[in-house]
């Protein structure tokens, strides 16, 4: 194939062993061309997470406002107006006493204002027709907080603030009106009790007694505190630092014996030290951001679940070499040991300058756990929580150590997609209205190694953080 020429032979001998190492973007472009763009799951999940959190918080806040605006009773004003007008018309029949009976609680101030002008005569006429010595209650009296009594023609008249409808009033007015209603009812009850024997009460004052019963039941329905819902929602953020622990049992049990067996008999055994003694790494700041829904199992115990985004980060200290060195990664599979070759400029031991590699992983977790209220004061308290977190690894930028402990190479292909973490924490809480602030330390531990089982060096991560959270109960 080649010309028999010394010059050409010289060129071939010199050039054929030359190597050059391409930039990372070359492989990325090739991979994209073959397999399409890597969908950045993180963006999708973060967007869904934020939209879900905003939607839920908006819905729950709207429900709270609706609760506050909901009236205590919903009487039909139109009906009561008709009743008042009908009563007014009927009052012209002087023999009828119902005009002076207790009006239904559904009559409002508007109705009263309309009837005021026409009722003064009715009252006078009515009194003329009532048996002397009896007591009537003038619910058509001008609005007043004072209950007055007077005797007109030997008929005791109690002028009391009429029982008004509560549905168009403010809370303050409603409270005042309820208090007045109670006073009126008390006065009416006294009148009924004073003027009639026990047996005759209902006969003599059927409408009064009937309306008293109705009014009592309505008054008893005061502005009692609404029953709290069993649900609450929580936002939290936890700045944290990630520590890692490495285990090289598989390397010592399987990889190194196989490598030693391949050496000549007289070759010295060069057993590397424990992996934790040869690597240098330091923790870096990561974060957990989450949204949770809490369900009150009891006063102190809550079930908690939600969505959480984790950013785990630590730094590896290494050296940069001027050339791309061959890094051998021995993998263990069902066929035995399989050696993968990577080329890397990062050397664990020597190089022309020191450098740091940033190991960063983005994860999405679904924490499922319990929260126990240890101490509960008026404002301050303390709770403890624990959860199990199935975790999905999203984008990653990790380096792994070659099995001879000499080089660091790209390890993204070997990272597990799913993992399990557990979390334990204690929080100091401060309650302000319906909002609970919390602050406290958290620990999160990763149970499965970061990389797949094929890679013999096991990495376990442990995060320490300080959680800041905001909890709102739903009413």
């Amino acid at each position, binding site marked *: 194939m080649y010309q028999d020429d010394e010059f050409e032979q*010289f060129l*071939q001998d010199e*050039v054929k062993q*030359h190597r050059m190492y391409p*930039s990372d973007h070359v492989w990325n472009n090739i991979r994209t061309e*073959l*397999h399409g763009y890597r969908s950045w799951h993180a963006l999708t999940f973060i967007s869904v997470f934020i939209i879900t959190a905003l939607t839920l918080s908006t819905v729950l806040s709207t429900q709270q406002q609706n609760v506050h605006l909901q009236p205590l009773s919903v009487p039909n004003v139109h009906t009561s107006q008709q009743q008042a007008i009908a009563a007014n018309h009927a009052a012209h029949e002087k023999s009828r006493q119902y005009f002076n009976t207790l009006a239904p609680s559904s009559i409002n101030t508007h109705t009263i204002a309309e009837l005021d002008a026409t009722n003064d005569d009715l009252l006078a006429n009515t009194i003329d027709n009532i048996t002397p010595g009896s007591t009537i209650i003038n619910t058509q009296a001008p609005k007043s907080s004072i209950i007055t009594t007077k005797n007109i023609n030997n008929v005791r008249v109690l002028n009391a603030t009429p029982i008004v409808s509560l549905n168009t009033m403010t809370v303050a007015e409603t409270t005042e009106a309820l208090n007045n209603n109670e006073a009126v009812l008390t006065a009416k009850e006294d009148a009924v009790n004073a003027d009639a024997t026990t047996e005759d009460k209902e006969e003599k004052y059927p409408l009064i007694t009937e309306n008293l019963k109705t009014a009592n039941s309505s008054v008893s329905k005061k502005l009692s505190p609404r029953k709290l819902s069993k649900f609450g929602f929580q936002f939290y953020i936890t700045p944290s630092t990630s520590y890692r622990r490495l285990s090289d049992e598989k390397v010592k049990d399987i990889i190194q014996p196989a490598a030693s067996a391949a050496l000549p008999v007289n070759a010295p055994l060069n057993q590397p030290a424990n992996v934790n003694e040869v690597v240098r790494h330091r923790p870096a700041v990561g974060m957990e951001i989450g949204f949770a829904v809490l369900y009150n199992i009891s006063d102190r115990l809550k079930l908690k679940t939600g969505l959480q985004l984790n950013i785990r980060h630590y730094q590896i200290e290494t050296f940069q070499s001027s050339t791309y060195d061959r890094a051998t990664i021995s993998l263990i599979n069902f066929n035995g040991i399989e050696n993968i070759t990577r080329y890397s400029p990062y050397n664990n031991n020597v190089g022309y300058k020191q450098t740091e590699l940033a190991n960063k992983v983005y994860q999405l977790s679904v924490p499922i756990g319990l929260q126990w209220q240890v101490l509960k004061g008026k404002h301050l308290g303390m709770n403890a929580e624990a959860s199990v977190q199935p975790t999905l690894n999203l984008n990653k930028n990790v380096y792994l150590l070659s099995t001879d402990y000499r080089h660091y190479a790209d390890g993204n*292909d070997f990272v597990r997609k799913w993992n399990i973490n557990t979390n334990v924490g204690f929080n100091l809480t401060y309650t302000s209205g319906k909002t609970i602030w919390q602050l406290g330390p958290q620990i999160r531990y990763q149970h499965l190694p970061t990389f797949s089982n094929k890679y013999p060096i096991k990495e376990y991560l442990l995060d320490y953080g300080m959680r800041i959270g905001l909890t709102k109960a739903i009413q």
Partner: protein
Amino acid sequence: MTEQAIIAGCLQNDAAAQRELYNRFSPKMLSVCYRFAPNREDAEDMLQEGFIKVFTQIHTFQNKGAFEGWIRRIIVHTCINFLKKHKKFNESLDISYANTVHVKEETVPSIMQARQIIECIRLLPVGYRTVLNLYALEGYSHKEIGIMLDIEESTSRSQYTRAKAMLETILIRKKIIEAPKQDFQWLTAFNKT
């Protein structure tokens, strides 16, 4: 991974097998591309296009001959097509051009002799460089070179002769090789008599 396992994995479009194949052969192939390309960026573009073709056409590899040789042929053809597409070919230049080439020390790194030689090859005009690469280093015949570059076989021969002379001049000036000794045997024989 064995070569067969890599090929089997690539046939199934397995990303890990493709990555292994790339890691194993890309250093050598980039060196090939670098000899054809005017700069490193173009060399990486050629490499990228070449490997995409390797992965998409791997089903055509028939296990006849070395796998590396098959990849190399694809890469070389990709380099030629790249140069044609970007119109990098110049007309042939006179041999006197070699005397005007000033080899600066800093343009030819002294990392290793192989790299120096490659840099000297890259100093040649693109047409000379391509023919020299194809004939002297990749083993193509002048007939095959003529077909690939759409030139006559005789043109390929003359281009190669000029390229070789030019490269020798550069290498001698760089003191990578020594000037060939003159053949004075006839003078020695005359002196003896």
